[in-house]
């Protein structure tokens, strides 16, 4: 499948790869250049492959409360929140963003690879008084990220970007609505725009004309990894809970029942069987990748779930699912890369400390 911005990627010499069935740019000029553009200036990503669901109706909030792990009722119109769709074992079906557009209208932004599964799961729990619409094929989305994105927003939209994170603006253009949220997957100031497909190219042209550099999935992955933002399918899975991923902050066990809650309560009482940790390799090493064995004094204690080379730190980094006994910052471990052991240290998340 191709997004509405596919021709833009080809015209800008984007290197196209398959991602969850989508032909997406993995990079343009280079991952390191694009990483720097986002950390120091501004980059723009096509995220049109992601899914968008509308949930509307008088029972919308209550229904989402029963399906999502976060406290959706805490959202006021114009606010957004990170959340999880869990299975009854507390495992992660998907991680997603909830935009509260109105008291009875929500927009969910979900992972590209999970659109069909999420939609089927939500439809299988349909209730009267709630309308569920998968609008993924009619909507596009871009993420504009980096310290210059505030200026770029003002130039392109003629108004100020809300300074706070997780704000949502509803913007009417050409008789259709777009949604701007001060969210992102890079750790930088920025915004994401969900818009009708027909408006995606003009939006892309507008932000690139004033200095947003086209960036691909490669840079996006490094940027998110430096911030320890999880990638579903790698760091999150149906076999592991958000508590194991260290994301209990986004789970509300006090809000009332939701799918997966009982399992989380039980796991919290019993203790987590694994913990997703941040590992840094300080000596010269190859970039870390997923599925490398992590050991302590030769004894396997887990494996990496994501990895790379942090341009900001100049060191190889990884997220790893570890025996909780090895999860304390400062713990010294080894990562096996092609039979050679590289010394790694558990560090506090995120790798890159930013104040937003």
């Amino acid at each position: 499948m191709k997004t509405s911005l596919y021709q833009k990627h080809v015209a800008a010499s984007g290197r196209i790869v398959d991602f969850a069935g989508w032909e997406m740019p993995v990079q343009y000029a280079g991952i390191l250049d694009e990483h720097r553009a986002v950390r120091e200036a501004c980059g723009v990503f096509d995220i049109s492959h992601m899914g968008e669901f509308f949930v509307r109706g008088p029972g919308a909030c209550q229904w989402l409360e029963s399906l999502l792990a976060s406290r959706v009722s805490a959202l006021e119109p114009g606010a957004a929140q990170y959340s999880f769709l869990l299975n009854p074992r507390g495992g992660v079906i998907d991680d997603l963003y909830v935009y509260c557009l109105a008291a009875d209208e929500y927009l969910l932004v979900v992972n590209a690879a999970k659109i069909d599964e999420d939609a089927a799961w939500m439809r299988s729990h349909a209730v009267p008084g709630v309308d569920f619409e998968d609008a993924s094929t009619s909507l596009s989305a871009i993420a504009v990220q980096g310290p210059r994105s505030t200026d770029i927003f003002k130039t392109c939209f003629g108004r100020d970007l809300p300074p706070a994170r997780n704000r949502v603006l509803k913007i009417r253009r050409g008789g259709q609505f777009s949604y701007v949220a001060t969210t992102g997957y890079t750790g930088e100031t920025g915004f994401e725009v969900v818009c009708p497909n027909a408006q995606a190219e003009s939006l892309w042209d507008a932000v690139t004309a004033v200095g947003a550099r086209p960036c691909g999935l490669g840079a996006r992955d490094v940027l998110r990894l430096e911030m320890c933002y999880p990638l579903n399918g790698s760091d999150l899975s149906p076999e592991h809970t958000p508590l194991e991923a260290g994301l209990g902050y986004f789970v509300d066990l006090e809000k009332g029942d939701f799918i997966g809650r009982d399992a989380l309560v039980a796991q919290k009482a019993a203790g987590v069987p694994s913990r997703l940790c941040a590992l840094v390799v300080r000596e010269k090493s190859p970039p870390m990748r997923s599925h490398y064995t992590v050991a302590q004094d030769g004894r396997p204690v887990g494996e990496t779930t994501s990895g790379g080379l942090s341009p900001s730190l100049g060191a190889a980094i990884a997220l790893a699912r570890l025996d909780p006994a090895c999860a304390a910052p400062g713990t010294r471990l080894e990562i096996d890369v092609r039979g050679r052991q590289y010394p790694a240290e558990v560090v506090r998340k995120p790798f890159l400390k930013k104040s937003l």
Partner: protein
Amino acid sequence: MNIPTDLRYADSHEWVRMESDGTATVGITDHAQAELTDIVFAEPPKPGATFQAGAVAAVVESVKAASDIYAPIGGEVTAANSALSDNPALLNTDPYGEGWIFKLRPANPAEVENLKDAAAYTAHISR
């Protein structure tokens, strides 16, 4: 795309230069480095290691992925490019020069005839 006419090429995008001292220098092609993108790590073989033609002899890693580098011909490694340890980007900036990966003493120098010349390699990558 730079494809020097004095080298021989493997389908897997390594080049070989037969040196006057009887050794063979091995690297990756300009096409390969462009496909791999920013190379951030290289693990050349240790001198003394021996490989059959087509065996994995080295690994290079870009930001995105690790890639095996194959011995285009068989032989014993006589030297590895230690400069790649501090500056793996040489593989991107000078793939046929400073970015060479290893040298080997061919077990059977005639094996080089199994490799493509520049014209055949050009055709191979434009398929």
